[in-house]
């Protein structure tokens, strides 16, 4: 059993060491530097925590995130029902369409909304450009798929007999839904809600491309404090506040999703659409056609706009670095950089994520179980720490040999791997957890070596989840903006960074090029996700 033990120890230590070196250490150093400036400055902390602006910003962050989450759940739950529990023609296509927004980089989502609501956009007359409403709509757009997928796959596996029994006993469909189905779905809704809330409360690229309306959010305020006011103390205290919010979200979600009894799960139960489904079907059709398709179509249309006419000029210009500027990386080069960096980041996140998922999916008892849930929570932290904190942290913590990574080409892929890791682990763990522990024990009892158990029992399940994990990792890395823009150097500029820079440059074609670049980025992210999912072997 020593080989077993060594292997598992390594499987725990490798990811923990990676997270410690590339996330906790730099972030911690930055926070420490901000708060401990030659001594603990209690007065300074009180000053920040009692400042009106701090609470206005925190308030806006929480309200914005809460409304985004509620919106995503309100349209996402009917969507989950229609797209996963029911069956109808072209369902696969509808599911794919609903999933596209999530794999889109936040910057592209921001650009898509501006092309719809902003100057010359079809919905310009609504006056929503650069408003908090626009941010919330974009958050719902972006996170719709998270709710639909998480709740949908749960709904699909619910045993229909419980609802049938309630109906036989005289419950109306509404009552049966509220008293039977909804409680069973609650953990899935809570779990997806928590992820959506995390994404909403820490979204940076989206809020920034939409013009940071209102007082801004904690994420934009941290950016402003450290880069405009050069006040690292305030930035650090706000970062801590953000981490507290993240931890609270995780605890609430843990609480809500664990309050569930044994569910009788079945595989893939679907029913054809009936007349009774008209309300959820209507909501879902409306959501997909307006909220999802409209910004995408507007983005595509805008990318073909040349002067007063239409054409491919914006796409042709992608071979240049922009009009009115000479030199610098071209957009095509940026696409190459994005693909290459994304590949490295994906490999890194898998090397770290696979052992981690194997560890987290084992059922253990006692102190090991506590350690397991701390680890499960800790890997979500990168989603909740400001990119500017991580970015500055990298430059002050990883600055001397043997860890002088400041000029290393691996810096950006490592940062992206840290960001992608939570999604990789989250997409692998459920399939691995589904393996009955008895199967591994039986194999071991029959004399299989630990490696053989891993290869023959876990292997097939791992392969099944791997497609989605690879897709998520690659798409996340392609779209990552905050940390990348901070660490990017001219020779490894990625496409999202390039798009934001094009948006900020004078010259008539730069806006059109940004739109064309965004369409290319969206196509890349969506097709990588689709290819990875298609490669998935469904053994069921």
């Amino acid at each position, binding site marked *: 059993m020593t080989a077993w033990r060594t292997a598992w120890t390594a499987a725990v230590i490798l990811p923990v060491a990676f997270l410690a070196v590339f996330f906790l250490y730099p972030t911690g150093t930055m926070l420490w530097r901000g708060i401990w400036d030659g001594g603990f400055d209690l007065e300074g902390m009180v000053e920040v925590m009692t400042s009106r602006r701090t609470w206005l910003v925190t308030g806006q962050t929480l309200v914005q995130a809460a409304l985004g989450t509620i919106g995503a759940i309100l349209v996402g739950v009917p969507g989950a029902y229609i797209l996963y529990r029911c069956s109808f023609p072209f369902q696969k296509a509808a599911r794919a369409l609903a999933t596209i927004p999530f794999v889109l980089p936040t910057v592209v989502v921001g650009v898509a909304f501006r092309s719809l609501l902003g100057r010359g956009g079809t919905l310009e007359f609504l006056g929503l450009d650069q408003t908090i409403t626009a941010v919330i709509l974009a958050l719902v757009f972006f996170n719709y798929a998270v709710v639909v997928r998480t709740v949908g796959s749960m709904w699909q596996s619910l045993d229909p007999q419980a609802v049938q029994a309630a109906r036989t006993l005289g419950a109306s469909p509404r009552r049966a839904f509220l008293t039977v189905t909804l409680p069973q779905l609650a953990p899935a809704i809570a779990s997806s809600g928590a992820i959506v809330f995390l994404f909403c409360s820490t979204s940076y690229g989206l809020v920034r491309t939409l013009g940071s309306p209102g007082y801004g959010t904690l994420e934009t305020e941290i950016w*402003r404090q450290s880069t405009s006011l050069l006040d690292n103390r305030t930035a650090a205290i706000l970062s801590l506040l953000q981490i507290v919010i993240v931890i609270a979200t995780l605890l609430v979600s843990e609480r809500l999703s664990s309050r569930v009894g044994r569910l009788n799960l079945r595989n893939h139960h679907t029913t054809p659409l009936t007349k009774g489904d008209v309300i959820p079907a209507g909501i879902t059709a409306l959501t997909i056609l307006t909220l999802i398709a409209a910004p995408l179509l507007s983005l595509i249309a805008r990318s073909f706009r040349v002067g007063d006419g239409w054409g491919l000029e914006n796409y042709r210009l992608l071979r240049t670095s922009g009009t009115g500027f000479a030199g610098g990386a071209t957009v095509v080069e940026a696409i190459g950089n994005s693909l290459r960096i994304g590949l490295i980041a994906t490999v890194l996140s898998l090397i770290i994520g696979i052992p981690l998922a194997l560890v987290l999916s084992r059922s253990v008892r006692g102190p090991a179980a506590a350690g397991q849930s701390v680890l499960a929570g800790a890997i979500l932290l990168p989603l909740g720490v400001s990119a500017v904190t991580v970015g500055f942290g990298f430059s002050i913590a990883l600055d001397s040999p043997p860890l002088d990574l400041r000029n290393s080409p691996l810096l950006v892929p490592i940062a992206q791997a840290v960001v992608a890791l939570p999604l990789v682990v989250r997409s692998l763990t459920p399939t691995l957890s589904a393996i009955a522990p008895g199967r591994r024990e039986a194999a071991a009892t029959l004399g299989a070596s630990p490696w053989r158990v891993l290869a023959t029992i876990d292997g097939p399940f791992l392969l099944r989840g791997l497609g989605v994990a690879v897709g998520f990792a690659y798409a996340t890395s392609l779209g990552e903006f905050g940390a990348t823009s901070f660490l990017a150097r001219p020779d490894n500029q990625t496409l999202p960074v390039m798009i934001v820079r094009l948006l900020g440059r004078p010259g008539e074609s730069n806006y059109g090029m940004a739109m064309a670049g965004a369409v290319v980025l969206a196509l890349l992210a969506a097709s990588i996700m689709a290819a990875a999912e298609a490669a998935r072997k469904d053994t069921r």
Partner: protein
Amino acid sequence: MKKLTVSLAVVAFLGACGSADEEQTVTILTHDSFVLSEDQIAAFEEESGYTLRTIAPGDGGVLVNQLILNRDNPQADGVFGIDTFIVRTVLDEGLLAPYTSPLLPESAADLVVDESLTPIDQGDVCINIDTAWFEDEGMTPPVTLDDLTEYASLLAVIDPETSSPGYAFLAATATAYGDEWEEYWAGLLEGGARVSSGWSDAYYADFSGADGNGPYPLVLSYSSSPAAAEGTSYLPDTCVRQVEYAGVVENAANPEGAQAFIDFMLSDDVQSTIPENMYMYPVNDEVELPDAWQQVAELSDAAIRVDPSQLDRRDLLERFAQLR
């Protein structure tokens, strides 16, 4: 444990790669609008014998904060892109070593503010105007900062907290009006001036000129902007001069390399491509500007010049935040 040892060894190896050939490399921290052509980089490397590495983590604020945070173990040898409006912090913090390039042209002599900063390029942040709009409406355009109060409802400015031209304009009004700048701004805001969140929002979404269809015929931008937008021009009396400096980082590993880079930035070749590359004006006035610039986008003769030592950035921004 073997895996850990291996992985740490890999990391150590990668780290070692990152810091190799220290002597031949010169690392320059720049803002994210910095551009040199590949030919120019090759020429610099050929002439100086150093390999050029540039890092562009963001705007001027990010650069200065990076310099402050890395003070004890600086990552870069030199820095380019510190502007007039952040000079004071750089000097107060003592982030740079003394060096003024001997190649500094005569025309740049009056731009020198300290022996550790070499002026490389300059520009004017000015109110731009949609001249066609004013002609169509038969209105007389404003001329001075004072006039703007009457035209406030037609004006889009930029948030000084999030954008450097926005802050430049705030600093200009603080210089022009002294203690009364808050009253001036209160007048603008009450009159209906729009505060956009960034330059591109103001110029592309709010401005009526520059192929946009926004509602504001007056917008805060640069004196160089009219070169790229027909039918627009700028108001010379509203301009504020912004100079961008380069310097050698204190405690740098390769200060000679940084000096060579600063000298290179003053060479005729680089100076003459600054308009196209970075949309700024060379500090060498003997270098010819592009034709379009000569027509409509010369530097203002009447630009407001702020005294960097008088600018308390934090105080200005905090008082501005109270006004909104």
